[in-house]
């Protein structure tokens, strides 16, 4: 079964081609890691899957339906998007912030069910005690958990995360990735996330998409894709892949 199918998409920024004939498929509960240098098209691919960017050629299918034919509200119920950063969230409480994720379900105002859903989701990400905290008073790890809760509160089948471990200390990085892993395994949410850290990319995802200049350079299991040869070609770095430790170190 396939939940997300990206079929030969070309995405342009003006005349600049940001994605070139990219195709991937994702199954429910699968974790897909997107790696590649800055500007290789990681964020562009995530935004294209969510329909924020429209492909010039090719299509994206969710659950067998083409996104271009779906209403915005319907897509919002199926896909949760966790951006790298927010424009502003000051003076919003955590609960209010998570509630905004219920927008695809509400008509005029939030109902009791939306509140319950929000509180339950906060429980899932282990942040129930933060409900009344203001968004600008959270630590980096707490903030990231709340961002994920906001995307999760709409009960999506797919979660897109743009570098979820950036700006976190190592303890929180592992914590967030374990949380993401739990969502995929227990709730069968398909995860597509961009990652910078190749060790994490080796350890957590089931599948790796390696991008270079908007093209898929390699795709497959982590141990097949993350090899010294590929790292040299894509990142221009000499690296050692320690298979027993499942880690990547640079020379």
């Amino acid at each position: 079964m396939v939940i997300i199918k990206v079929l030969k998409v070309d995405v342009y920024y003006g005349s600049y081609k940001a994605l070139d004939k990219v195709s991937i498929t994702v199954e429910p509960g699968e974790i897909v890691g997107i790696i590649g240098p800055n500007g290789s098209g990681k964020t562009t691919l995530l935004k294209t899957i969510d329909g924020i960017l429209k492909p010039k050629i090719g299509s994206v299918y969710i659950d067998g339906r083409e996104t271009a034919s779906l209403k915005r509200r319907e897509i919002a119920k199926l896909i949760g998007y966790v951006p790298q950063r927010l424009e502003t969230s000051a003076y919003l409480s955590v609960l209010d912030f998570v509630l905004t994720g219920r927008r695809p379900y509400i008509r005029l105002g939030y109902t009791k069910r939306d509140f319950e859903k929000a509180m339950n989701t906060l429980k899932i990400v282990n942040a129930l005690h933060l409900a009344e905290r203001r968004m600008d008073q959270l630590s980096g790890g707490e903030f990231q958990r709340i961002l994920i809760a906001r995307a999760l509160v709409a009960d999506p089948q797919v979660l897109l995360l743009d570098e979820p471990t950036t700006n976190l200390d190592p303890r929180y990085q592992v914590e967030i990735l374990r949380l993401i892993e739990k969502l995929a395994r227990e709730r069968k949410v398909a995860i597509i996330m961009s990652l910078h850290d190749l060790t994490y990319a080796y350890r957590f995802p089931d599948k790796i998409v390696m991008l270079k200049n908007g093209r898929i350079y390699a795709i497959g299991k982590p141990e097949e894709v993350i090899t010294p040869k590929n790292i040299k070609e894509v990142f221009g770095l000499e690296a050692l892949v320690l298979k027993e430790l499942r880690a990547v170190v640079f020379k």
Partner: protein
Amino acid sequence: MSKGANNLSKGALSYRILVIITLLIILAFLIPLSTSIGLYNVSFLDVFKVLFKYSLPESEAVALWLRLRRSLVAVVTGILLAGGGAVMQAALRNPLASPFTLGISHAAALGVAVSLLIGQTGYASMWFTGFARPYVVPLFAFLFALAQATLILLLAQRARLEPRAIVLSAIAMAFTYQAILALLQYLVLNELQIATIVFWMFGDLSRPGNVELQVLLLLTPILIVLYMILHADLDLILIGDDIAFSSGISPSRLRLIATIISAFGAALATSFIGVLAFLCLVAPHIARLLVGASHRYLIPASMLLGPILLIVADIVSRTILSPITLPVGIVLSFIGAPLLIALLLRGNSHGYH
């Protein structure tokens, strides 16, 4: 869900509802208070008598109605301006955005100057302004304000400007209008006309008559509903355009709707009472410090704080140098600015709680 969690969320909710109810009570108290204060002494009780249609001596009833009308004008314009300010601040994601930083007040002032210019030349226009004198000045102010709002929207939609660029270009336009206005004052207008413009720019609550009040009372409830309908979308657009789009709303369309609605509200209020620019800015900020940024509380709180601030400023303006009545806009700035700064300094670490 655990019971503790339920209580946790209810604590924050009831706090904000409490703030809004308190503001409502303050406003309900201020209207008769403002009506009872003035040169002609009326007791607080008599105000209620008039409200509930007891018959009073005629002179007293007339004085009371004039003052009550003034209070009601303050309430509706306070609602229109403060609500519009709250909507614009979120839609343009800019704490300085308001219908007035979009150049609407300057456009309206220019409209007044133009209406005076037309009134000055030729017999036909003299007849026209004589015939419809009370309506020409507000009408021109309104048309110019709406024209400016349209211009902003064209910039935003056609040129696809970013919110920050919209605010900057609007400020640039406002300076242009100011320059044109100054040029007209310098070259063409006479002393009387200049005085009219200056007085108009202060903002005056006693200007609207019964008909104008009826228009305001008729349109304000519609705008209240329109402001409130946007609450969930405004929360979203505050967070970011991508995330808002991802949650199912179109940021550019919301920005368009929000600008039209609040520009209409501001144009309506400005054309009848003149410029009270500061209210749009200060009321939503104070409201945010009291109830946080969630718009389902922020918009009602702003729409209550606007009238409260305006009535307090009005009371002060009528009593402080009695029998002279100061323009309410001046007093509003004197009260609002220190209040906002004090709250910002104090409330920096606590949004609510």
